[in-house]
């Protein structure tokens, strides 16, 4: 518990540093491209088009899904995927890539995964706004249900941060983890109702799918953006489950991080 407080208080105390370094992160990533920052949006746009074409236009033959047209249905869920996927991948690499350039040991090490996540968060907010505008044109206007969205954004952020604390620590001595993560994430995309609705499956399989916390986040985003219901209240058991999982992961991540952080540089 003490580790959790250490880690979280570092995030608060060095928030200014976090924000500035996250901006540099974006700068470094897009420096060599002519289109620069625009790639943060072009890339998701291309993927969304392909997924829509294959799953919506092709496989589903333009039929509605769970009572909604496919495109807005997919858009409202996939938006968090473009935050989740790169944050987890880059977040896990963050420490071993950067530890060497830290010229001082008293740099708050737990900031490093968060810098990456925060830099992805900027483009997530951008993408989210665009998705909201699009949905307005597609017949899903702003509704009272938007109010629950910050909960899922915050929950999602905390979940990604907790996972990254664990993976970035493990990654300093087990580099194979990166391969494992990539494979898992590729699988997760299809195990979550992002591109297809899982409601056609037997109930027990759906329950198994729901073990995956990303499931909760995707549904939460979707119900808010499409203005359907108060998801976190109507599914309060699932909300509790998500909170519990996130907290346990945060606990494990913080303990591991604090335990090993002095020795990171020795491992590499």
């Amino acid at each position, binding site marked *: 518990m003490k580790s959790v407080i250490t880690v979280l208080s570092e995030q608060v105390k060095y928030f*200014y540093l976090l924000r500035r*370094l996250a901006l540099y992160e974006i*700068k470094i990533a897009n*420096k*060599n491209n002519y289109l620069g920052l625009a790639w943060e949006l072009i890339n998701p746009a291309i993927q969304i088009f392909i997924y829509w074409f294959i799953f919506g236009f092709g496989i589903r033959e333009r039929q509605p899904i769970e009572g909604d047209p496919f495109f807005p249905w997919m858009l409202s869920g996939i938006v968090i995927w473009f935050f989740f996927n790169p944050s987890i991948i880059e977040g896990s690499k963050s420490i071993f890539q950067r530890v060497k350039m830290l*010229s*001082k*040991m008293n740099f708050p090490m737990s900031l490093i995964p968060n810098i990456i996540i925060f830099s992805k968060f900027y483009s997530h907010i951008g993408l989210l706004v665009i998705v909201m505008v699009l949905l307005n044109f597609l017949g899903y206007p702003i509704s009272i249900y938007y109010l629950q969205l910050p909960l899922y954004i915050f929950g999602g952020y905390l979940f990604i941060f907790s996972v990254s604390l664990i993976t970035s620590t493990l990654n300093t001595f*087990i580099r194979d983890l990166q391969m494992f993560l990539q494979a898992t994430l590729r699988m997760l995309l299809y195990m979550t109702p992002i591109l297809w609705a899982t409601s056609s499956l037997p109930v027990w399989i759906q329950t198994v799918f729901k073990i995956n916390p990303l499931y909760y986040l995707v549904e939460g985003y979707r119900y808010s953006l499409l203005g359907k219901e108060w998801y976190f209240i109507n599914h309060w058991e699932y909300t509790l489950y998500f909170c519990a999982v996130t907290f346990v992961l945060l606990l494990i991540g913080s303990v591991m991080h604090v335990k090993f952080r002095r020795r990171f540089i*020795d491992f590499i």
Partner: protein
Amino acid sequence: MEKTIIVSNVTKKHKLYDNTSDKIKDILFRKGYGEDFYALRNVSFEVNRGEVIGFVGVNGAGKSTLSNIIAGILPETSGSVTVKGDVSLIAIAAGLKENLTGRENIELKCLMLGFNKKEIQQLEPEIIEFAELGKFIDQPVKSYSSGMKSRLGFAISVSIDPDIIIIDEALSVGDKAFAEKCFNKMKSFKEKGKTIVFVSHSTVQMKKFADKILWLEFGRVKEYGTKEEILPLYEEFIKEYKKLSKSEKEKYREDVLRQLETG
């Protein structure tokens, strides 16, 4: 006299593993795996404020390890290091981002060192002026020559006004004029009463600059004292050591280490 660096009984142990699974086992289990390698053994010394201390020793003596531990970059395995004030380690082109311009690197580095925007704005012209990069300051660092990189690294490290400065072989790169400039900067630091740790192979620089010499040999302190006492001994030793053949050097190393173990 106030002590600014107190190093007592510092030991640094590296592990050498035969394979990667040993590494994981070593981290997870109490029982140690892998072979121990001592980069430093029971190193103790103290430095007073305003002194310049030089680390000398042949390759692999542990000079860089020791300076990294004092700078707080590497953790020590056992023993303790007390350092009073801010430490700045100057190594060649340390931690520059290749993709960013010189100016952006200055900002980034200063941010990481804990400066705020306003302070960085004040520091920036001074750093740029010292680094003498001209137009290149707004070019990505990957287009720099190695001399330019080290100039930039050096300029950042000295401009942040640390209390303790560790220079790890950084003065041996770059041209004469710049080395002279760095030397003058170091002298002014010395006059201001800052503590300087100086790692170099060059006994000429040591003679000019250092007050005290710490002579390291295979990770332990061989001699520690004023430069007048130590440097002649060291030069004598180096002359002899250079004459030895490779196998004799190896034998010498083994003899010393055996002596250490038997106490």
